[in-house]
């Protein structure tokens, strides 16, 4: 066989094996990063950027004085080597100096996102958001419990207790915990403190737990929020009928009936 043919054959073999390997590899990686219910350290950038920016060095894990942060190991079924925490086991205690963030060498934990007026401020962190399952929260049953409310480091701000008449007894009050999602940092101290067998208040990633009203719905009484209406654009829906005049479509409905 000529050298040229041999070379072409070898190249083709290389490309073939590489394509096969690349296919398996990318399928594995795509599967491995699909872990939406993951809580990241404070200051973590958007998950899709986090996955490409985090170098998996564990400096944040080492900086954490409470051993809150963990690095995903094989078998954890989380994106390998990336930091996360499980609030029911060890929540984030919201250190005012946030030791885990400035040590990040790649900016996957972004200092500016936890900074107010040039100073580190853990209270603006958005690690997740606490969600109450009112079917298992005993406060919603009428049993007095304010464990989560008391545990919250932003006491009275991130969770407040709403009083409501208990119609069942007629003389007692419900004291229901309500999470304010704009304040809640997702530290998980409430989840840790929850007295039920499986926590009735728990932290979820904000992307998972929160909806989005969109620009078509604004708080008209709020000047700031009112501005969003500018972003709203008319939706044009095109159907077969919209070709004709709307009135005509009612008159000669033709094949509709």
């Amino acid at each position, binding site marked *: 066989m000529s050298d040229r043919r041999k070379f072409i054959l070898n190249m083709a073999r*290389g490309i073939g*094996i*590489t394509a096969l*390997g*690349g296919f398996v*590899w*990318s399928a*594995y*990686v*795509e599967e*491995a*990063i699909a872990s939406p219910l993951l809580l990241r350290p404070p200051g973590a950038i958007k998950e*899709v*950027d986090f*996955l*490409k*920016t985090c*170098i*998996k*060095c*564990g*400096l944040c*894990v*080492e900086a954490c004085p409470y051993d809150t942060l*963990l*690095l995903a*190991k*094989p*078998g*954890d079924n989380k*994106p*390998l*080597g990336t930091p996360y925490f499980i609030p029911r086991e060890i929540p984030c205690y919201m250190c005012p100096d946030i030791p885990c963030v400035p*040590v*990040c*060498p*790649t*900016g996957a934990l972004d200092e500016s996102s936890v900074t107010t007026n040039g100073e580190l401020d853990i209270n603006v962190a958005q690690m997740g958001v606490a969600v109450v399952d009112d079917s298992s929260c005993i406060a919603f049953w009428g049993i007095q419990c304010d464990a989560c409310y008391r545990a919250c480091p932003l006491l009275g701000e991130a969770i407040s207790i709403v009083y409501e008449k208990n119609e069942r007894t007629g003389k007692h009050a419900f004291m229901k915990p309500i999470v304010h999602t704009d304040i809640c940092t997702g530290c998980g101290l409430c989840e840790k403190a929850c007295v039920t067998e499986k926590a009735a208040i728990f932290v979820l990633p904000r992307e998972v737990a929160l909806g989005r009203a969109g620009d078509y719905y604004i708080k008209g009484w709020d000047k700031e929020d009112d501005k969003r209406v500018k972003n709203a654009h008319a939706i044009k829906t095109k159907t077969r009928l919209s070709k004709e005049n709307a009135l005509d479509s009612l008159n000669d409905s033709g094949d509709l009936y």
Partner: protein
Amino acid sequence: MTRLWNKYRYLFFRRFTQIGLLVLYFGANAWGWTLLMGNLSASSILGIVPLSDPFAGLQMLVAGAVMATDLLVGMLIVTVFYLVIGGRAFCSWVCPINIITDAAALLRRKLGIDAIAKRQPASRNMRYWVLALSLVLSFILGITAFEFISPISMLHRGIVFGLGFGWAAMLIIFIFDLFVLKNGWCGHVCPLGGFYSLVGKTSLIKVQHTVENCTACMKCKAVCPESQVLHMINKQSLAVLSGECTNCARCIEVCDDDALGFSLRKFAKIKKRESNNESNK
């Protein structure tokens, strides 16, 4: 005893470096030491000097990540070190996987598998394909593709932060190297090894062969994990110039005839010129 020391001194130093670094990293996580924090992907010396894996950084770059200053500085320090001084020394002096694959290679020799399976069915250039593939996949998927499967960081992270099921990957590499392919992982597949082969090509520290002393016993070739780099043995007084040489120095130790030794590259060149001049006379 002196003989034993002469036969294993570099091996001892290598294991000392490899395990010593692991102990420092482990201590940083377990007891809060600050000398060397992080892991092989990125570390920090005393919280001041950043170090980072240039190959991981390269993947981040093609994945489209914003590159932070600390990361770039860390990449630069590591790259310059191996580019100018160490060559591919990362593989044999730092990487913890080396201990596993060396063990497999040793067992392979002891069990006589090398003698039976003489032909190597795979090309050592595979690592460059894997290297290219790492970058292509990082670009397409927008994540650091090799970092999510790398057994090197898996093992190193495992030792420092907890291994999980990572031991299975280590076992697979051991068995692969033992039964399937001689020097399979480090010498054929690992893209980080390929990366440092390219980076370390021009480094100063090289192994030098002196053909006059050589008795053609070929012990060096038997022990070398990248035996193709020793093509000059018993032929020519040359430095091992291939970037694929890991500077592990096993060849120097097993040589009974003083035909191999470390040299600085420039020094080696002068020597070569002298010997050429002599032969011209």
